[in-house]
């Protein structure tokens, strides 16, 4: 285990990611102020996340820049856990495509980005006995890149597609002693793009009323990023060193389907929806450090605890009230709420660790904490038109309450209660051009 071996390994441990901030808080100041709704009600670039079909509603080019931040006050077993603030920049681009003929005013492109100020991606894969909220705060520390296109088919029907992109890492480090007796290292790692598809459709119900009743359905594929690095120092010296498998799944957004119904008039937008998240497919954070050979699948290497996550159904509701203050000036007031159930079971299996004191492998509790979230949201907006500059200004705030939830180890040992709250806020300025 030479320095070069470990150094080589460290060169490879680059990107470990956590899931997307938009899955936690929604995306875009308007949507985030409206209870993270949007599958039937999103406007502009925000639809690249909420439902790309709605990108076809764009008529004006717009560039939006904003700031977003979140603070976490999370308690596990009576102790406040320390988590850094999540803060970042929002960039959104509305691009209606000016086709002519039958395609006129029917196609729109949207680009939606969120880049944390300090990090592109945070990877925090801790030993399971370390108290942690694996599904919450570090998930907000990840870049978001989403692109989509929407098409107005006609007859009230719109369809759209897009993708989200992230990066995962894979590589190897080989350390060996060469023919001259010197230690040589060969390290190769790659950041590889991973993509998650997104698709959506909306239908304006033909009710013949002044208000538009719209149903929206959006699908977002699994967005995951694995890191997988193998360190091979078996030819370093006569000391028999195992292969180190430094791997894990640090980033994960489950596949999800959002269904929403919205009622729109020029003055008032109401939205109500639900999002199904397939957390049961989540394989968990960690992988074994030592992999058993194929001919000895039951070797003595440790295996990380296998947690059975469960599917969830989140509910969203929001309202946007437009008030025309003057001909060139409209203000918006927004409010909403959403719930995000807890996919982590309250009873989790224990992990294993080598205890040097007892000189044997012992059971250690898996101190994973999480709790259902109830979020209250609010927001405001300003729209100016000629003769004022063509500007959209939106602000929002969210308060997430973690409903206190007890956790126990599978041997019955109580681990304590998960509770706390999260505050989120942001401002976005858009310029139409």
């Amino acid at each position: 285990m030479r320095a070069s071996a470990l150094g080589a390994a460290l060169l490879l441990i680059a990107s470990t990611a956590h899931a997307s901030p938009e899955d936690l808080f929604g995306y875009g100041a308007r949507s985030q102020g409206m209870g993270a709704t949007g599958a039937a009600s999103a406007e502009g670039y925000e639809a690249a996340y909420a439902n790309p079909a709605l990108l076809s509603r764009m008529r004006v080019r717009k560039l939006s820049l904003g700031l977003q931040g979140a603070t976490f006050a999370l308690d596990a077993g009576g102790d406040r856990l320390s988590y850094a603030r999540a803060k970042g920049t929002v960039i959104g681009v509305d691009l209606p495509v000016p086709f002519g003929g039958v395609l006129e005013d029917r196609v729109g492109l949207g680009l939606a980005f969120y880049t944390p100020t300090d990090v592109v991606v945070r990877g925090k894969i801790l030993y399971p006995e370390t108290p942690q909220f694996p599904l919450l705060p570090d998930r907000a520390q990840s870049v978001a890149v989403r692109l989509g296109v929407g098409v107005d088919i006609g007859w009230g029907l719109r369809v759209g597609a897009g993708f989200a992109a992230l990066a995962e890492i894979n590589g190897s480090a080989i350390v060996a002693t060469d023919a001259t007796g010197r230690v040589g290292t060969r390290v190769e790692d790659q950041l590889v793009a991973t993509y998650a598809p997104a698709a959506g459709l909306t239908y304006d119900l033909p009710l013949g009323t002044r208000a538009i009743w719209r149903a929206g359905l959006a699908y977002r594929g699994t967005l995951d990023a694995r890191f997988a690095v193998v360190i091979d120092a078996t030819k370093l010296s006569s000391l028999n060193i195992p292969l180190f498998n430094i791997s894990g799944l640090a980033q994960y957004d489950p596949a999800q389907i959002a269904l929403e119904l919205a009622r729109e008039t020029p003055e008032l937008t109401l939205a109500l929806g639900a999002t199904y998240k397939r957390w049961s497919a989540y394989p968990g954070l960690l992988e074994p450090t030592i992999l058993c050979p194929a001919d000895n699948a039951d070797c003595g290497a440790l295996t990380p605890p296998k947690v059975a996550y469960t599917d969830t159904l989140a509910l969203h509701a929001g309202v946007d009230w437009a008030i025309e203050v003057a001909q060139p000036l409209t203000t918006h007031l927004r409010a909403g709420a959403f719930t995000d159930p807890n996919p982590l079971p309250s009873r989790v299996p224990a992990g294993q660790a080598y205890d040097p004191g007892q000189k044997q492998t012992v059971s250690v509790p898996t101190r994973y904490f999480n709790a259902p979230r109830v979020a209250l949201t609010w927001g405001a907006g300003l729209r100016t038109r000629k003769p004022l500059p063509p500007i959209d200004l939106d602000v929002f705030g969210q308060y997430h309450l973690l409903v206190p939830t007890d956790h126990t180890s599978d041997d019955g040992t109580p681990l304590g209660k998960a509770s706390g709250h999260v505050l989120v806020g942001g401002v976005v300025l858009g310029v139409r051009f």
Partner: protein
Amino acid sequence: MRRALLALALLAVAPHARANPLDPFGFGSRGAAMGGAMAADARSFDANYYNPAGLVRAEGLELSIGYFRASHYLKTNGHDNDVDPVKGLVGGVVAPGEVLGVPFAFGLGVHLPDDRISRVRAFRQETPRWELYDNRNQRLYLAANLAISPTPWLQLGGGMSFMSSTEGHLDISGLANIFRVEDSTLRHQVDADLTSVRYPQFGARVALSDRVALAAVYRGEFKLKLDLTAYLHGSISELTTAVYQLETHSVNNFLPQQFVFGGSWLVTDDLRAALDVTWVNWSAYVPPVASLDVHLDIPPPPGGWPNGITPPQTPAKTRIAALEMHDRAVPHLGLEWRALATRAWEGFLRAGYEYDKSPIAPQTEVTNYIDRDRHAMSFGLGGRALSPLRELPGDVRLDAHVQLSELASGATIKRDPADLVGDYTATGHIWNVGATLTVGFK
């Protein structure tokens, strides 16, 4: 023997650090065909790289997508070194408009390699490598820019390009079983961040007349740092304990700052000539070698080590050899001839030339950062369909390019006759081909 060692080493390795793949291979087929002489002439998605000020010259929304492949045939002592090709998508968006009566544009440009976003390969500093061409090979390029035109004769633009550095901590603990390795009860945890790196670019373009324009562009320097610590602690088959601490710092990627001065001259209605000179601050280059600080504590077990087992020793601290590089001025020359002009179609022939004198000092000591002077000749074709459909009221442009880079042959002579790698010759060429499709809307 030395030649064999060198050939083997070069077969086994390729890039260490990386830089910008667009510097040697261009961004979009029009720019590549014109030798990269685009600072005063770019007006499409390629302006995101060549000169952000050019974005505001777009007549309407433009969407571009293309592909290129640059295949290396780089050799030492007659052996091909199997440097990987650079290949991937290029594309971008230009969205012009007006804000308060002032022409304004937003642009986004991207090169997305086929196989990866980026790659790091780390070797000993003695290991031979084509430092600059490997540097520019395997990396994403992503830039966003804004541009305005406060007067009809002046365009200004700027923006940011994005990459990331790494810092983090690795912890491995448990029992390493040296008699039955698969029964080792080891675990790991990782706490690592990819941190944001943003570097700027700015540009200005001045139209002296309808036919002559001058431009200046600045591209910022950036470094991708890798700062990592590790702690390994545990038992070695219950014979003894092991504690291993490591701290490493390195710059895995360095892109020197650049200043570009360029001009474009529409000689006739159908012939355009362009000349750029790029000053590259290579002298600021940081050797891509990691510094290591290691603490290793493995006390011998009671009764000594079993027969045949030699414990690892703390390696000597890396002494990083200096890498001497010189600033360079790189000329780019481009010509574009509109050979066909009808109401519905236009056709273009393009040619270009670029000369990169190697900035790396002769590698006479222990390092082997190989480089040679590069002459790049390029040729291109372009076709433009004007308002081809009712649904497409703008134009559709298809451009293609081929570029041949010849790297002059030269010998590297070592000062030490006992140098492990020894003397060698190096030469080669690079073929770069690609095509770009742009749809413009008015």
